[in-house]
């Protein structure tokens, strides 16, 4: 998940508020006279990695997108913005398939993100209760997440096969329609891809929610009980506000992960039927790594990046803190999760 670094960048931007948020120190007076470059020294290792593996490739990518780039050939003619213009020219050979793939990514994101935000929250709320076997269930919900996409993809490809798969077989046993083409027709393929993805990654968001839930001080719930709040009111007025900072992180993280979906459709549907379930990343990989049209592929990635940035900004804006509210504490698990 190449997005981790970017998420990490967001996470470090989130203010790590001191517990006494109101007491701001006057600038320039610090209790221990530190050298001005001390913080930079601390940052240095990460900055080095960030520069080498994120900034440099990004800038180089822009350079590539301005050329007809094929690294195996000595001559890489400069074409300026042509690769970008072609993407918006319906008659060019790559634009049709690119926008089809962008649409596929959009469909997948729109259906998977809400599910991946809401379902894990339910799971986390359940797992936060104390009941016998709780740890076992926590493990069960998290288990699929440790599998690689290849394992998950192959397994589900066979389970979902419409002629020989177990899913249709069991549906048939229950008297339900047992001839749905889960991997070769839309919309069934989207149901399958979203379903598999939710099953696979639900555990990760659940764990983060769980950590955040456990960070909400018990006193708040006690105070709410004293005020006569019922459980819905507690959830509404204590739990949700307590989850707000983590919600931003989970939302952005899930959005970017969904927008970068590749492995599931590559393995389960192979983009079928036709190119319907080919996601943007899938199409970019095909264009750049198979067809060696790296200039076009780089241009596609920047168009995708642009969309993701706009969406991220919107999410930040939606979840922005109201000025007068004190900043709740950000749970440590979020930062750890972000920097995994």
């Amino acid at each position, binding site marked *: 998940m190449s997005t981790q670094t970017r998420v990490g960048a967001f996470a470090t931007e989130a203010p790590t508020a001191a517990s006494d948020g109101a007491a701001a120190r006057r600038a320039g007076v610090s209790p221990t006279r530190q050298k001005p470059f001390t913080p930079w020294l601390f940052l240095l290792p990460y900055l080095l990695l960030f520069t080498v593996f994120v900034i440099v490739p990004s800038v180089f990518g822009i350079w590539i997108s301005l050329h*007809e*780039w*094929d*690294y*195996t*050939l*000595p*001559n*890489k*003619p400069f074409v300026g913005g042509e690769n970008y213009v072609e993407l918006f020219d319906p008659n060019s*050979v790559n634009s049709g*398939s690119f926008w089809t793939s962008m649409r596929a990514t959009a469909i997948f994101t729109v259906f998977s993100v809400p599910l991946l935000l809401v379902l894990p929250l339910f799971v986390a709320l359940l797992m936060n209760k104390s009941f016998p076997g709780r740890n076992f269930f926590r493990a069960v919900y998290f288990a699929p997440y440790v599998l690689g996409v290849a394992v998950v993809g*192959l397994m589900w*490809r*066979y389970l*979902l*096969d*419409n*002629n*020989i*798969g177990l899913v249709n077989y069991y549906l048939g046993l229950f008297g339900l329609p047992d001839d749905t*083409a*889960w*991997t*070769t*027709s839309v919309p069934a393929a989207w149901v399958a891809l979203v379903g598999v993805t939710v099953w696979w990654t639900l555990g990760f968001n659940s764990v983060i929610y769980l950590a955040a839930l456990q960070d909400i001080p018990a006193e708040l719930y006690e105070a709410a009980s004293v005020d006569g709040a019922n459980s819905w009111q507690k959830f509404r007025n204590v739990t949700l506000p307590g989850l707000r900072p983590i919600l931003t992180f989970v939302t952005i993280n899930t959005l970017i992960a969904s927008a970068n979906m590749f492995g599931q459709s590559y393995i389960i*549907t*192979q983009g*079928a*039927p*036709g*190119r319907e379930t080919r996601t943007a990343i899938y199409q970019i990989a*095909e264009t750049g*790594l*198979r*067809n*060696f*049209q*790296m*200039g076009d592929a780089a241009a596609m990635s920047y168009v995708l990046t642009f969309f993701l940035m706009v969406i991220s900004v919107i999410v930040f804006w939606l979840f922005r803190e109201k000025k007068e509210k004190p900043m709740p504490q950000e749970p440590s698990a979020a930062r750890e999760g972000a920097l995994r």
Partner: protein
Amino acid sequence: MGKRLRFTRFMQGAAIAAVGALALAGCSGQGGAQSAGGEFTGEYDGPEVTLQYWNGFTGGDGPFMEQMVDQFMAEHDNIKIESTTQEWSDFYQKLPAAVTAGKGPDVGVMHLDQLATMAARNVIVPVDDLAKELDLSADDFSKEVWDAGVYNDARYGIPLDVHSLAMYYNTEHFAAAGITEPPTDEASFQEALDKLKAAGYETPFWMPALWPAHLMELSLIWQAGGEPYSEDGSEATFDSEEGVDGLTWMRSMVDEGYSPADVAADAQYVAFKNGETSITWDGIWQINDLKESGIPFAAAPVPAIGGDPAVWANSHNFFLPRQAKPDDNKANAAKVFIAWMSENSGEWAGAGMIPARESVRSSVIGGTVQEPIAEQIDNMRFLPAVPGLGPVQAETLEVAVADGVLGKASPEEALQREADRATKLMQENLEKFGG
């Protein structure tokens, strides 16, 4: 299922179309049309060398290759071979990268339909002198496979084998349905299907939408006397009448109930192994996998549905990569290796393949499962040596065939749409490679 995946994507995993014109000669001082290693003498008696040998034999063919390599080393104590085996789809992406970075192997095997692309990208060097020295000539090979290794008047590959599609059939089902001879043309194939259905095998011939559907379509086009692409690589012609007829016939198998609708990736093959379907067309490299599965099966040539017998085929070819720092010892040792492998390619028949050399083939093929297919070697057809064709085909023909078989679009519509796209991409390639 690694074996299956390997081939599921071996062609679609074909890497490569290129950008920018390339004059073969005079590229960075070497490569170009000169060969590696100077004069080849057929012997290697220099100091001990270690050769990096890359291939994609990840499936049931892998052990046979390892055996051959071990045997080679036992006979040549001054040549060590270090094999690197990876999925073909990765192989075609990594090889150009490695060679460009000066970290390529010393010798390797690739598919015939990749040779032109890799030659145009200056990844591999000609091996004409090797062919001459080995006294290899068209006489010992089928013309099709021998000619297909030539690009821009230079030879780039030494064929190890040929492998084509075959018709696998369940011998138990055939016996139960009273079919004595495997069908050979449209009429007998139709008759066989009807007999199987009558014997209670509801769906005797599952029609795939993905791999190897496009190879079936290619075979049908050639059988009807058509061509999927123009020889000079300037346009795609698979939307011709022959192409439409082929895809229409494929779809009719679903419409007439011989196949279920919406057959997903690999399902037809799994169904054959489970005895759920009686006939499937697949590559002969699956022979060992089918043997292991214990199913009662036999192989026969793909029936001539389109009229004349013809079938899609491919071939594994030895090649020599361009070297950043040419080393005569290594180059000569590599040639000795290729020569030995070619001489001893009979072993390779154990992997289900058909040795490319007639002199070798005639002595080992008797009694193998692939024997009936080997007899048809002159009907095997290869894609033209056009650089960058592999990925174009994966991007276009495969999509059209899938759409046609799934009934998402009429055969005409799907083929025409994708042929237009393929022609555009091929034109771009011509420009890039300075066609």
